[in-house]
């Protein structure tokens, strides 16, 4: 990644992204309304390619709403109205003329609560590839996705068992494997570890770092330590005085956690509110 400026910071030996990083998705003037409720106002930021971007902020600040706008999941909520531009491979995917099904095949998603399908472990991974017309060897694809989601060793002898028979942490890694089977280039994660125990959480975090070598990851988290541990870039949201979600600041994670520019960011990351 030539666009990365490599510099070592206090808490991390990871390269730090600067503003010139290669951009995968650029969001401009995003507004989201739920009926009469103006939930997200005028949000603009860039998501760098093959890196982890963390969206953080207090409850109700609209970070999940922003995340769900990126793969048009808000289309499923009848009262939701999303305005603004989300540019991805040169296309504004928020344009109503763009088929959300195609968007979601390229921008995968992992949800807050593990939600494997009531199918076998094998079919959980194979299903997405099947409906998207995968032509290659399905066994190989399933194995490779399970390996990349760091769960192959745990499930290789019980691929025919229900995905629901796994523990919560395993289910979440199965859901990540499922998302990988579509060969997406972006994976959105909505608080992927908030329903998991600390050990499973660490596994998911390691996996996110590993996946960022090949995929662009956007993760919503309410866990400051997690954002600091896994992300290259952090976007901080908060509520304005009309209780609308607004972007306060965005920047390299190491910078933001050591040297926040905005008082509200500092208050939040030091635990003074939120």
């Amino acid at each position: 990644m030539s666009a990365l400026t490599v510099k070592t910071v206090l808490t991390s030996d990871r390269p730090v992204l600067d503003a010139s990083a290669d951009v995968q998705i650029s969001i401009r003037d995003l507004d989201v309304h739920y009926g009469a409720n103006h939930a997200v106002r005028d949000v603009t930021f860039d998501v760098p390619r093959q890196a982890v971007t963390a969206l953080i902020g207090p409850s109700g600040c609209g970070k999940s709403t922003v995340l769900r706008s990126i793969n048009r999941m808000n289309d499923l909520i009848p009262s939701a109205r999303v305005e603004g531009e989300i540019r991805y491979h040169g296309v504004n995917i928020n344009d109503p003329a763009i088929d959300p099904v195609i968007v979601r095949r390229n921008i995968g998603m992992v949800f807050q609560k593990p939600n494997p399908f009531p199918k076998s472990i094998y079919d959980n991974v194979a299903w997405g590839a099947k409906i998207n017309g995968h032509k290659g060897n399905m066994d190989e694809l399933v194995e490779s996705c399970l390996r990349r989601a760091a769960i192959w060793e745990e499930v290789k002898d019980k691929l025919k068992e229900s995905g629901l028979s796994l523990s919560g942490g395993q289910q979440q890694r199965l859901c990540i494997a499922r998302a990988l089977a579509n060969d997406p280039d972006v994976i959105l994660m909505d608080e992927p570890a908030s329903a998991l125990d600390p050990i499973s959480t660490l596994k998911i975090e390691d996996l996110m770092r590993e996946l960022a070598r090949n995929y662009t990851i956007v993760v919503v988290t309410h866990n400051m330590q997690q954002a600091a541990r896994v992300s290259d870039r952090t976007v901080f949201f908060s509520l304005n005085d009309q209780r609308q979600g607004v972007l306060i600041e965005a920047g390299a994670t190491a910078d933001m956690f050591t040297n926040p520019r905005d008082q509200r960011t500092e208050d939040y990351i030091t635990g003074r509110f939120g």
Partner: protein
Amino acid sequence: MTHRAVSGTPPMAPPMHHARSDEEIARALTSTSSARFSERLIGYALAACGLLSVLTTVGIVAVLIEEALQFFGDVSAVDFLFGTTWTALFANGSFGVLPLVSATVLIAALSMVVAIPVGLLVAIYLSEYASPRVRAVVKPVMELLAGVPTIVFGYFALTFITPSILRKVVPGTEVFNVMAAAIAVGIMVVPLVASLSEDALAAVPRALREGGYGMGATKMEVATQVVVPAALSGIVASIVLAISRAFGETMIVAIAAGSKAQIADDPFESAQTMTGFMVQAFSGDVETGSTVYKSLFAVGLLLFLITLVLNLISNRIVARFREAYD
């Protein structure tokens, strides 16, 4: 009093004074309250109601078994279960129940050919495609269909389905025929299948649908490949319930299928079901205590056993396919 303000440095909060002493609380704890008696009384009354329904069922089964056993004194169980001629109302008639069973099974099976696809499609439409406003109107209207007296369906089959549809398609259709009855029974149980299946589909967590959409699945793929499999236990339960209902249906088949007790091999001919025979016999003048009279109970017992087995199968299937969502 054991609770006193601690003297010395001024406390942050004022001292707390409990309204009741330790002795008062101890007395309250050990006293038997008369209010508890009414609680127990309500418990007994409710248990009595529950017991009443259990006793009624036991009583009905006991009567069925008792009379049926007397019947098997006159006719051997083998002749009854495997005989292919049912001429119970004739003098020296024979009591081979297979014609009645065959008509019952054929009508139930054909009715499911109508009820399962239509009921499931309606359920999928209501749960996955219809807007909340459409669902709020359509579902209650559809459930009204379940309140239509079955005799109306019987006349509908006899005076509309047979002359206006079946005879146009298959000219040789008899006035009383299995097909018209089966179609009417199928229509009658559509609301049952649709309503219960819709409940099962609606109970599938939203998170699972989002998982499907998040994979780039279309609405059709999510509905048929994620939501329906996840709701399978409820859907199967609704179908088995509909089959039981079709087996026991009486009025429609008595009116539309006719009373010719013959092995049902042609759906466009008349045939008599188990319930159809029972209606015919009870509405005629059957002598109490006669073999025909007792045969009614044997047929009733057999019908009861068939429905019981169906319900047991249904319970097994529901337990087998149930997915636990919290």
